[in-house]
């Protein structure tokens, strides 16, 4: 499943980059994510809950930054398993930042996601709609965070 989207926030690129590379800040924007810890250089472990109808999958995710160009680009590899269950999620995600003429930042992200197991039972067409819905929630939270907390940092 391929997801590609871009959105703009009214905050400079340096601030957006700082937030993106701060796991504690990022998890507050990721729907269903309630904990993250750094397990090594550029490697993180996170707990993410994905609910589709009555099925609630709790993934234990490993996220590794595999490539980055400071202030511009980051590529991550994520793998998740759901306890003893056979649900597996894998993703390679790219995020690219560019300045907008208005002084804001455009965030362009694309992700190739594979899901198998319990949630894999839903068709990929529907999963993509659900992923897009979750992505919209992320965008809203991220935009609010980037635009409102600026003075504090």
């Amino acid at each position, binding site marked *: 499943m391929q997801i590609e989207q871009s959105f703009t926030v009214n905050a400079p690129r340096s601030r957006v980059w700082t937030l993106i590379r701060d796991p504690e800040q990022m998890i507050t924007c990721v729907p269903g994510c309630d904990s993250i810890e750094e397990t090594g250089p550029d490697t993180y472990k996170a707990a993410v809950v994905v609910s*589709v*109808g*009555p*099925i*609630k999958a709790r993934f234990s995710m490993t996220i590794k930054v595999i490539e980055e160009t400071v202030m511009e680009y980051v590529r991550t590899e994520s793998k998740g398993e759901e306890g003893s269950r056979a649900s597996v999620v894998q993703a390679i995600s790219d995020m690219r930042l560019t300045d907008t003429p208005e002084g804001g930042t455009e965030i362009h992200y694309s992700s190739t996601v594979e899901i198998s197991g*319990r949630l894999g*039972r839903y*068709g990929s*067409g*529907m999963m*993509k*709609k*659900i992923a897009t*819905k979750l992505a919209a929630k992320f965008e809203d939270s991220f935009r609010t965070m980037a635009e409102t907390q600026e003075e504090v940092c």
Partner: protein
Amino acid sequence: MLTFMTKQDFHKPTTVEDAVTLLKEAGEDARPISGGATLVALMNARLVQPSRLVSLSAIEELTQCTHQPDGSVRIGAMRRHRQTAFESDLKAAHQVVSGAASQIANPPVRNMGTIGGSISFADPAADYPPSLVAANAEIEIAGPEGRRCIPAEDFFLGWYETALEPGEIVTAVILPPVPASSIGQYEKLCRIAGDFALASIAMTIDFDASNTVSTLRLAVGGCGGGPVRVEAAEDALIGTKLETDAIAAAAELLVAELDPVDDVRGSAEYRLKVVPRLLQRAFNNLINIREPAQ
């Protein structure tokens, strides 16, 4: 092997309040169970393993269907699809709901499944959601904070998501009063009898003395995350005599708002092509209801 069932914490309260308390106590992995048509299948497939099951089957108020003095009809959440399909209290436009009920799956499922369970599951291709939107129904919900009512249109949030908060259950569906002259129609297209809809159209409609459409509510099922209602499409038909051109124009407005996906039943593209024809067919079939063969 049903070994995992033995650990289940099973309860059968007799009041809505007790059911809500039992659900709240056990937290977010507790599940209410009504007919079990979906939940038991999910449990058998080990897709869902609730920490507690709270059966709603012994709560008398949920099993009743009552015609209120003001002409509205209150369908208790535990009413089986079969009961709703044959409900004598559902007349005129309310028959969009009994029509939908009569086309759900097959007799064993209709004997088992309930209206409350079905809408709480909110399958995007299910039959009740578009019919309840077309009927302008209200959904009555009970939770730790008491009861509340919301329009069906605001209940279905898309792709199995509903307005139910954790710990809340559906207690009834309330259909508003309708004129005796109004008509309810549910048109379903599916690959084989008993399947979920590839696409469906639910409508409630009324005509004035000159046979012009005076009121209309339309909702499409199976072509998005939830039922899709497009007021502009309804407006395009109100005031017409349902000429073929008017129906085609309304269908175009309707199709523009649909958001179907490719799945095992058909491609998104196919669904978009089929909806205008289904709409035309739904109106053609109205003639059979309005002018029954002598």
